[in-house]
């Protein structure tokens, strides 16, 4: 929409979230919704991040603390299971890591350039000091 002229958009600067109708939004997961290009779901804030969360499912207990406390709807949980992090919408705040209760944590922050597989391979072991 970057170069649209004055005659090329809805009056009143009104925006629509979805293409066509959607009967039960609260019962429709994001992947099953047809967002318009105006939904920020279709945008990315990945370039805000200096550090990123890496998820190691080996230690995850699916407690969903990261899901409920993520400010950016970036913890993808389906059927009560944590699936991963939505890296288009994660701003790298690190809350998910802070609220993760496992030992070692199932989410840790690394530099944006870090390689996920390498970091998982060298994941820290259980921290006895925190027990």
């Amino acid at each position, binding site marked *: 929409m970057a170069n649209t002229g004055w005659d090329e958009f809805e009056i009143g600067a009104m925006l629509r979230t979805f293409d066509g109708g959607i009967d039960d939004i609260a019962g429709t997961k994001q992947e099953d919704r047809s967002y318009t290009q105006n939904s*920020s779901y279709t*945008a990315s804030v990945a370039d805000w991040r200096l550090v990123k969360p890496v998820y190691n499912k080996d230690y995850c207990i699916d407690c969903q603390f990261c899901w409920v406390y993520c400010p950016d709807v970036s913890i993808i949980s389906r059927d009560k299971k944590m699936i991963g992090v939505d890296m288009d919408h994660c701003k790298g705040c690190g809350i998910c890591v802070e609220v993760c209760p496992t030992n070692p944590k199932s989410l840790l922050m690394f530099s944006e350039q870090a390689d996920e597989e390498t970091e998982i391979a060298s994941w820290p072991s259980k921290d006895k000091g925190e027990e």
Partner: protein
Amino acid sequence: MSEIKKIKNLKEFSTSADRFEGANLLCPGCAHSIIVREVLNATNDDLILAASTGCLEVCTAVYPYTSWDASWIHIGFENGSTAVAGAEAMYKALKTKGRLKQPERTPKFVAFGGDGASYDIGFQWISGCMERNHDMMYIVLDNEVYANTGGQRSSSTPIGSSATTTPAGSISYGETKNKKDMMGIMAAHHIPYAAQVSPNKWKDMVKKIQKGFATEGAVFINAVSPCTTEWKFDPKNTMHLADLATDSLVFPLYEVIDGREYNITYRPKNIIPVEEYLAAQGRFKHLFKDEYKYLIKEWQERVDANWAYLQRREEAKV
């Protein structure tokens, strides 16, 4: 009335399909969106939402993007409450006249505003909406400062906080006025339901929001929203700050029914000294100088007195 969404535990809650989207422009670690998600996910009913001008509004509806998956309106700084009240009035009118497109639906009307929009500039509008008892919920995202415009004091800013219009300096400890007791004022409207909530206590929050949604009439919610930018703490610590706020009893969690019946809904097992809450935030840094330490003592006394007051109100059962 619609069925209340079953949320027994966090796993069940996590099956919610969010109606608020990422890639909004809120700061990393902002508590506003955590609160918004907990509120929106507390129901499966349709939502008609409004926001007063402020962080939430300017970060979630900047053309050509919207972060809202339910109908949403913003008019100005002071009138998010009345915007939703107007929509609620139209809903009632069209229901009476049989002109609703989906008459079987049971929408919930919710307005969000910051403390600037609620305690200050929009105070009268909220009071009007509460007094008229519209079937709506007004939620304050209370970060105790005009964060969107860069940190000016509001009437929610507590004593000793350094704000840009009440900056701490060589002869000043910052804000000199008490935080306005908005819960007390709203309760005095004798609305059916008012509650203070915090995003760290998600279950308490969801329970209260659901109670609010099930209430016919006006509901007021004050939600503490730790602000990484203006409270000056690392964004990763947002929930830690919320824990400190609730467990130091600086933000006690309670509800007021019909303006009279007080229920404390969370009693911390270990009450944390207020000093720890203050120490975690840059806005109170100067209070730890020798000459201002008496303010920390006064802070503790104030919090203790308020807690005692709430407990007496609860016990009174009137």
